[in-house]
């Protein structure tokens, strides 16, 4: 039992840099402070991504710093899932910081603070997926929530931002209460917070225990809220609309990825969902996922059809995308889980990229309304073209990774005889095309309404990152075989 091992390498790196930034922010007083901080943060997270690699060989059960073999005492479980999600969290943090880098959304003197909070959220998130202890889960969820409330209200003097923060807080508080209630009921039954103890307890049940099911429902709801699965999505559009875009970019990508990872971890560990033995599960998760995915896709798509604000449009569309994550789980096969993860990878990166491009556009046009960005491509064809590519991927048009992910989900659904569900979800793509095309129409086709003077020209690093993201969007389909084979070997 060694005191030090590599498992927390990326997290430690982030902790150290949080402290460093704190002091740097205090004592460094030159004009270029904010830019230095942003550039530094990008580098830190690039290193963190690399630092994940040595942790792969250290997988296993941990009680805080110590690696142990007794899984009933463990608090963290590092496995393929938590590592995959960690990559996604750091990648979307990088995208969010790059988006922030050349922008004036967060005031210069506030940058340090903003980054410290962002780092802390990222840090908490990277532990959320690996926890197998309900209490730790609750603490981490609360940390993320509290920090998120601050960041969504970060534009102090914007009424919408304060509204977003407050609504987010109210919803969060209510459902936090729900989940702690659920956790306490479970503790009353099981006498432990450990997932494996709960699993053993459920297996040993001889008859249905509805109070226990109710408490599991309450815990599930706290995941569903974070994932904004319909009908638990009501906070999403308002919070997205009011929050700073660089944070929304982070929240929609990393936030979704980590909540999905935590949900998956819960279901895989406690209910052994990957064995697909419906009788052994007591709760029919498959049917729950079918209902929730269809309701998310339907509500997200139809609500997005008439939005005038791009952020709200993307918010509703993200609800629809979450429905597709769940569809993969609903397929109830290993390929289904693989396709969900691939969809998650695609969605996290592409959605972050779309918000990145949107931040540049909305700052130059001084607005996030579809009408006021009319004809934007005439002024900045580069960003517009890249955004068009991301949108094509989000719609699911070939040859993008979005298409590949959707294709895999349809494949796994049809493979499991759920062709009606497959057909329904596929036809929602046509509606998705309809609302996404409104952004394309506004950017490219509409006549220029007001002459824009570009306040923030995109610079070289912006260009390189946008192009890299586009290459990922299109080139992703060539990685498809590799991704499937790789995920298949580690799951």
């Amino acid at each position, binding site marked *: 039992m060694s005191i030090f091992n590599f498992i927390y390498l990326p997290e430690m790196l982030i902790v150290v840099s949080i402290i460093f930034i704190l002091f740097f922010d205090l004592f460094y007083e030159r004009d270029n402070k904010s830019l230095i901080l942003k550039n530094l943060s990008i580098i830190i997270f690039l290193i963190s991504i690399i630092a994940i690699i040595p942790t792969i060989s250290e997988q296993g059960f941990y009680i805080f710093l110590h690696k142990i073999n007794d899984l009933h005492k463990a608090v963290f479980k590092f496995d393929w899932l938590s590592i995959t999600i960690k990559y996604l969290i750091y990648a979307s943090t990088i995208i969010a910081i790059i988006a922030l880098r050349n922008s004036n959304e967060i005031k210069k003197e506030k940058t340090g603070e903003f980054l410290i909070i962002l780092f802390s959220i990222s840090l908490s998130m990277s532990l959320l997926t690996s926890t197998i202890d309900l209490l730790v889960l609750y603490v981490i969820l609360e940390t993320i929530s509290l920090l998120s409330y601050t960041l969504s209200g970060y534009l102090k003097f914007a009424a919408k931002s304060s509204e977003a923060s407050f609504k987010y807080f109210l919803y969060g508080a209510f459902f936090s209460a729900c989940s702690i209630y659920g956790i306490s009921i479970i503790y009353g039954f099981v006498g432990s917070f450990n997932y494996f103890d709960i699993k053993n307890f459920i297996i040993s049940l001889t008859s249905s225990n509805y109070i226990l099911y109710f408490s599991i429902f309450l815990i599930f709801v706290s995941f569903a809220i974070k994932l904004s699965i319909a009908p638990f999505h009501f906070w999403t559009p308002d919070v997205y609309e009011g929050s700073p875009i660089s944070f929304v970019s982070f929240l929609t990508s990393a936030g979704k990825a980590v909540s999905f990872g935590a949900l998956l971890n819960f279901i895989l560990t406690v209910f052994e969902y990957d064995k697909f033995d419906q009788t052994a599960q007591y709760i029919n998760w498959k049917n729950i996922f079918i209902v929730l995915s269809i309701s998310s896709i339907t509500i997200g798509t139809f609500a997005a059809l008439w939005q005038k604000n791009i952020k709200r449009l993307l918010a509703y569309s993200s609800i629809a995308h979450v429905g597709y994550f769940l569809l993969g789980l609903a397929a109830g096969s*290993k*390929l289904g889980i693989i396709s969900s993860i691939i969809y998650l990878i695609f969605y996290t990166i592409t959605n972050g990229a779309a918000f990145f491009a949107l931040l540049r556009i909305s700052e130059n046009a001084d607005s996030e309304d579809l009408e006021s960005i009319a004809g934007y491509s005439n002024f900045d*064809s580069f960003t517009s073209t890249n955004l*068009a590519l991301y949108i*094509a991927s989000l719609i699911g*048009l*070939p*040859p993008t990774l979005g*298409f590949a992910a959707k*294709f895999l989900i*349809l*494949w796994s659904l*049809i*493979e499991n005889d759920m*062709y009606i569900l*497959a*057909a329904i979800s*596929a*036809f929602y*793509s*046509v509606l998705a*095309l*309809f609302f996404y*095309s409104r952004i*394309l*129409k506004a950017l*490219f*086709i*509409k006549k220029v309404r007001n002459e824009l003077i570009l306040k923030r020209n995109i610079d070289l690093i912006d260009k390189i990152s946008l192009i890299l993201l586009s290459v990922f969007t299109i080139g992703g389909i060539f990685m*498809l*075989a590799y991704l*499937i*084979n790789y995920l*298949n070997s580690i799951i």
Partner: protein
Amino acid sequence: MAGFPILSTIIFLPIFAVLIILLLPKRLKTSIKTISLVAFLLQTILILFIISKFDFNLSGVIKLEEFQFVEKVDWITVSNSAQLNLNFKIEYFLGVDGISIVMLLLSGIIFPISVAASWNIDKSPKGYFLMLNLLNSGVMGTFVALDLFLFFIFWEIMLLPMYFLIGLWGGERKEYAAIKFFLYTLFGGILLLLTIILLALSSSIIADGISYKTFNLIYLMDQNNYIKNGYLSILNSNHIRLLAFAALFVAFAIKLPIFPFHTWLPDAHVEAPTPISVILAGILLKLGGYGFIRILYPLFPEYSKEFAFYIAMLGSINVIYGALCALAQTDFKKLIAYSSISHMGYVMFGLASLDQVGVLGSVMQMFNHGIITSMLFLIVGIVYDRIHTREIAKFGGLALKAPIYTGFVTIAFFAAIGLPGLSAFISEAFCYLGAFNNSDTRLFGAISLSGVALAAGYMLWTLQRIFFGKLKDNLEDFQDLTNREIAMLIPLSFLVILFGIYPSLLIQMLNNSINFFVIFISN
């Protein structure tokens, strides 16, 4: 030349052009246009080269070994997943047979002409030619892809460029037309995708001792490669196979377009700029017909025979309905668009007859109609460029002012009517002959005959209203054709006359493949 990937070169030449154009600054308008023109002309040369080396004795269609210029590489292979119980193989598989070579030739003719027709585009030519090149790549890929997944990718690549080409460079109602086109074709695309997944999931081929699901179109045409209880296995007689047939039928019918899925076409045509209308009518509609021949019929031969009556009925509805609508139009371009719908009806009932002559006529009709309708749309474009209206009522007596123009128009109009000696005559006649040879389709062959009379009606009436009679005042300054316009129309007119006088050129290319196709479907 064995081993040189000539088909890939054809597909990726425009992509290469795209990369060059992306790097060029916006102001170098002429270079952008020249690069596109050069890329497209190189394609044409390569296609002609393929034809010169092509062995027309080989039939292709369902025989893997008889396809020519084949390129076959494993692209996406998922394997060694015993517990996943799922291995699949997506191949980069290209090849041509008699049918696809004719379609390639058509694209090789139309695309350079469309560049010439777009020479005067002055609204952001960079974006325009980028989109045109992407579109070209998708079209060429679709005509040579023999793997369903690859086919689908090329099929869908065409959507986004086309949306922008109509939506950005189109007429007054361009936004409406562009999104309508996009939604209709994406709807069809999704039906196609679902069917492709069903097909692949019911298949099983053994390679290297492992059983794979395959997307290979040729393997899928052989029922031996299906799992016995697979969704679409012919032994497993359930409604899914019928549903899949219907889904694929609708997917291609939207593109062709068959009544009642045609409503996107008049809008898209009227709003699209001239060169895009030329491509749309000249090539994209043929993709629907090509899909019928390449995919739908060989995969579902039993339903193709069973429903011949209804398919022929839809075809003849197209002929009559399109012609009647054309008669009622006051807009010159809309008239041509409806005449397109009418003429694509021949393709449908010719194919439905499943008779050698009928199917031959059907494919020839696709080729000939591609050439003729391109000419017609160019003609509309020329007149619209000059006086910015398409109202037929505002024209009159143009023959006095523009004799050369009128000459070309006469050729195109008579070709569209199906005058003997011009190309459409032979293909329409073949379609009728084929329809009469099959007792199922005979009735609709007879009904559709009235389409010829109607075509003569609307074409001649239009000719009379626009070109004869007294010269209208607003046409006093009408200029005759410029050299560029003559250069576009001459090759098309030449081909119309060439294939009218000597149709064996086409028949030679198609004959073996079509014979084999018909024998395969009929048994």
